[in-house]
């Protein structure tokens, strides 16, 4: 299993780190250089961590845990109104970023109220494009347990719920953090920061479970490896969006319109195969982006078998046809 870490140090001899990462079969996900200092996010096989730690010590840098690196998380509020934003939704999103996640803040169109609160199929589909979703709800247990719980029912990605009152259990969610609720000011007191930490830990747990689930039937290639190939495309390099490629647990989001980039993506060569043979490439529902979902090794093997079968059937058919023709030609 890959582990994502962040190297924080100087640029002097940093190439040695890149080479070592490559040697052990890891990837450099992101580099951010500020004058002579650099932060490098790397994905490495978990068992090779001591080697990287030793190299980091040698280079005089430090390794920082970024357990949510390589994930994109949606933080969802009932609406975009000032009752819910910027606090606490943006505070939670900001705190998750400290752990390496890319976060997106969303408000539902009709999430306000109790019995009138609803989520559309489109909104669910948007949320399902992310690795996990954090739903931030209000202060009344009665409201959450009877009505708001509908908002995150049947969402196929892991859901963490943040709410105000102490609730022992909530259906349809993988994690629950109580004691936040509605806020009209920034979460900066010690107990509020502790709650943000608790939320981050809950999201980490949910993401870790998802990673373990993926490892049971591993992906054909790691998303970081696909990212390395894709970032050389001219269309991606021309993209002015802050992070043109965002890693997901089981794929990536390329922030270039599907229609423009689909053929180029499909043609990318990875281990002698075309990218479209080992992934599903689809337009993002948000528009202007393309989603790449990497198939698992089992799915690719199954595809191979199927195409082999089809080829064999075709060959048999080809062999049969000349005989039939010959028969026709006989007097």
């Amino acid at each position: 299993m890959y582990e994502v870490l962040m190297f924080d140090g100087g640029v002097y001899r940093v190439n040695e780190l890149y080479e070592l990462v490559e040697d052990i079969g890891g990837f450099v996900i992101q580099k951010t250089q500020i004058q002579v200092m650099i932060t490098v996010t790397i994905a490495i096989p978990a068992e090779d961590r001591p080697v990287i730690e030793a190299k980091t010590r040698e280079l005089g840098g430090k390794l920082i845990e970024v357990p949510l690196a390589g994930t994109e998380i949606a933080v969802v509020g009932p609406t975009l109104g000032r009752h819910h934003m910027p606090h606490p939704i943006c505070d939670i999103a900001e705190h998750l970023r400290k752990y390496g996640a890319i976060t997106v803040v969303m408000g539902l169109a009709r999430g306000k109220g109790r019995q009138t609160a609803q989520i559309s199929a489109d909104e669910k589909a948007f949320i399902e494009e992310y690795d996990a979703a954090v739903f931030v709800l209000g202060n009344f247990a009665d409201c959450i347990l009877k009505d708001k719980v509908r908002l995150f029912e049947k969402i196929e990605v892991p859901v963490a719920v943040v709410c105000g009152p102490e609730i022992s259990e909530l259906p349809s969610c993988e994690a629950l953090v109580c004691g936040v609720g509605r806020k009209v000011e920034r979460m900066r007191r010690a107990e509020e920061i502790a709650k943000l930490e608790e939320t981050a830990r809950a999201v980490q747990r949910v993401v870790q479970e998802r990673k373990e689930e993926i490892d049971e039937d591993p992906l054909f290639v790691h998303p970081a490896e696909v990212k390395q190939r894709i970032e050389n495309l001219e269309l991606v390099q021309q993209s002015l969006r802050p992070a043109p490629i965002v890693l997901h647990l089981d794929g990536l989001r390329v922030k270039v319109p599907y229609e423009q980039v689909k053929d180029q993506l499909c043609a990318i060569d990875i281990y002698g195969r075309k990218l479209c043979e080992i992934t599903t490439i689809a337009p993002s529902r948000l528009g202007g982006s393309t989603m790449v979902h990497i198939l698992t090794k089992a799915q690719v093997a199954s595809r191979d078998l199927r195409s082999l079968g089809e080829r064999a059937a075709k060959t048999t058919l080809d062999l049969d046809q000349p005989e039939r023709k010959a028969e026709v030609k006989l007097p």
Partner: protein
Amino acid sequence: MNIQVEGSEEYGNEVYVELFERILIDLGLTNRVEGAKLLIYPEKHLFIVTVRMRQARTSVKVNEVADVSDREGNAFLVIRNESYAPALLALLWKQFGRERIEQLSRLEILAHGVTTERVEGLQISPGEELRKEVLDAIWRLLPEGFKVRHNLFDENVMTIVSTEHTMDDEFLQMGEKAHEQMVKGMGLDEGTEVVDDEEEGEGDV
């Protein structure tokens, strides 16, 4: 300032008192609100807020806050007390129309075709502005989905009854009762109080 709360959920009650205090601080209204009472019953889809404001500044005549002089048949005003400037401008617009009122600089206003006598006698009422600000604070506090509202206004007391569905008679009666109590100033000297219905019920048993 004294905020009382009554409702069925202890956590929600405490949080909403804190929320209202923060909202009033943000809007700079803590010294202008004498007391408030919140009735919160999420299971009934009911939220009532009643607020008692302190006496607003008394009405003043225009010549008390501005120097009024004649300039070629038009009234020329130089504002002395800037805190009254928005209210004064709004009053002049309302009385004589926007096309006749020209704001020459931050503190100078020219009223075309208006005599000084007509301007000097006008009264500025800052109470209206205070009511607007308090109403803004209440709207910020009320749950977003509770769109069906009934308002009760008195000279210094403002009550909003809000619900998500039909406004029942029971809700209106509760609102009127809370409004009357607030008008009489009942319980405002007792300090911040959180009443939890569930706890009360347990005590009765």
